[in-house]
């Protein structure tokens, strides 16, 4: 046994290296707090400025009216409609394909070459600039298929643009579901498909909804890919057409178009108003998607996350 050494009396106040560590600790807290706060301040300033500029433009005739080509007083009704139309059409294509591909890769494929190749392709596809994807859409849908500018061509281009991201999100959401739950289900004689539909997907639905909200925000804001595929106009004889076979200028595209190409005199008013409406639409969509996601999670899991 080693001899028992006596311990000299010590103080409880910080000195020497303890003091230095305390200072580093406080500095880190302050720096991180300032960084986080500055993001909130910038966002708030941005929103307040946009509201300040755009508020006066938000009249019923602006929100529900049709755009004008040469005179003042044009509205953005069809553009708002087209933004939602293209969003929904894109999601109708993107969600089933991306979710199915994500399920296959995460739950069925063995880790190996095929999975690696698909993931590498998806990641490469995800980094392609949207303007390049727009030019691809122009060549394929507009010229090769001779569809001209259509809502469908625009939605398909956006599908290509967003598939990899949503597939990735689906994979991440599925991989966050613990294997012990899969074992529990399989251990009771559940088939793989039952396990996926009854346990894995309900557990992952919250994260998947978040993924859909994120790509929806990108679709609302997308311009470059749509300028070449869905066009810069709305059909004047039927601006709220249900058909996908017609040009469909979205609000974000209209915002770009009115500032860069348009010859109407009230460009500033239209731009400021459109920007504010776009912002409100994105916020509303995010909020409602979050509520839906929470309801789904609650319904499937019995508790809100």
């Amino acid at each position, binding site marked *: 046994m080693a001899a028992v050494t006596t311990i000299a009396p010590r103080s409880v106040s910080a000195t020497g290296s303890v003091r230095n560590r305390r200072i580093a600790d406080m500095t880190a807290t302050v720096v991180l707090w300032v960084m986080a706060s500055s993001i909130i301040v910038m966002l708030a300033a941005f929103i307040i400025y946009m509201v300040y500029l755009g508020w006066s433009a938000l009249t019923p005739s602006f929100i529900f009216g049709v755009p004008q080509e040469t005179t003042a007083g044009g509205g953005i009704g069809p553009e708002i409609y087209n933004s939602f139309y293209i969003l929904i059409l894109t999601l109708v294509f993107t969600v089933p394909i991306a979710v199915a591909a994500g399920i296959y890769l995460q739950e069925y494929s063995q880790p190996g070459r095929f999975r690696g190749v698909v993931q590498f392709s998806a990641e490469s596809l995800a980094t392609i600039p949207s303007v390049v994807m727009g030019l691809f859409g122009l060549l394929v849908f507009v010229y090769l298929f001779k569809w001209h500018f259509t809502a469908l061509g625009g939605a398909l281009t956006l599908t290509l643009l967003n598939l990899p991201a949503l597939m990735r999100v689906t994979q991440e959401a599925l991989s966050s579901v613990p294997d012990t739950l*899969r074992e529990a289900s399989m251990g009771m*004689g559940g088939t793989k498909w039952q396990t996926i539909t009854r346990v894995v997907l309900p*557990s992952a639905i919250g994260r998947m909804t978040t993924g859909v909200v994120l790509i929806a925000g990108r679709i609302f804001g997308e311009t470059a890919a749509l300028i070449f595929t869905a066009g810069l106009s709305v059909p004047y004889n039927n601006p709220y057409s249900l058909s996908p076979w017609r040009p469909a200028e979205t609000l974000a595209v209209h915002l770009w178009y009115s500032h860069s190409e348009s010859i109407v005199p009230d460009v500033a008013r239209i731009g400021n108003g459109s920007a504010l409406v776009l912002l409100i639409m994105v916020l509303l969509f995010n909020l409602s998607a979050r509520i839906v996601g929470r309801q789904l999670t609650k319904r499937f899991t019995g508790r809100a996350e």
Partner: protein
Amino acid sequence: MIEMTESAAATTNKLVASDVDVYYGNFRAIKSASLAMKAQKVTALIGPSGCGKSTFLRALDRMHDLTPGARVEGQILLDGEDIYGPDADPVVIRHRIGMVFQRPNPFPKTIFENVIYGPRIHGERNRTKLQEIAEHALRGAALWDEVKDRMQRSALDLSGGQQQRLCIARAIALNPEVLLMDEPASALDPIATSKIEDLIGELKEHYTVVIVTHSMQQAARISDDTAFFHLGEIVEVGPTSRIFTHPKEKRTEDYITGRFG
């Protein structure tokens, strides 16, 4: 339900493993393990960490099918039929053989949905019947009184011990013939552990129980037969009372007297 008289049960082997090898890739984790598990008895698998007792248990339910690179050789007979035979269907086998895992793994669903998960995936749709099954299973797992008023609450709101009893209820809701338990109390506090142990004593009236435990006291308290695993082999098998008092093998003796493990 198993149709079996008390006297017949005492002598019947429910599950018989013969020369079972389990491989992870090239690694032979279980070496020629043979073990007969008697109907309506508790068989305990003991041994030091990494000795292969859980690996062996998982082979009894074909859970290794789910692990890429794992394979099982040898024969495991359930009532005389090979569960690895060409006609054997894992879905049917896992319906007849239930499993409770080391850590409670309730689904992130309501308590009710958890209990009736098994019957539901096997096609039971009648709501009244499902409610009866749920109550029966929860009573069987000694959890009914604690949860009967909050069946629609999330199972994740339960304590660890309650979650594990819920997992047992979920397993017995399927009315399995064999119940495999992989250290079911290792993540629980002493009170919850003793509840689970009492429960196992009751469960063996209806089910054949095979339990992996790292606690020799637990094996001594609850099991009828004990198999001692070491380095992937079954070193010794016998009635629990004999294994703990008169082990035949030196390694068994060293382990139960605490010389290693």
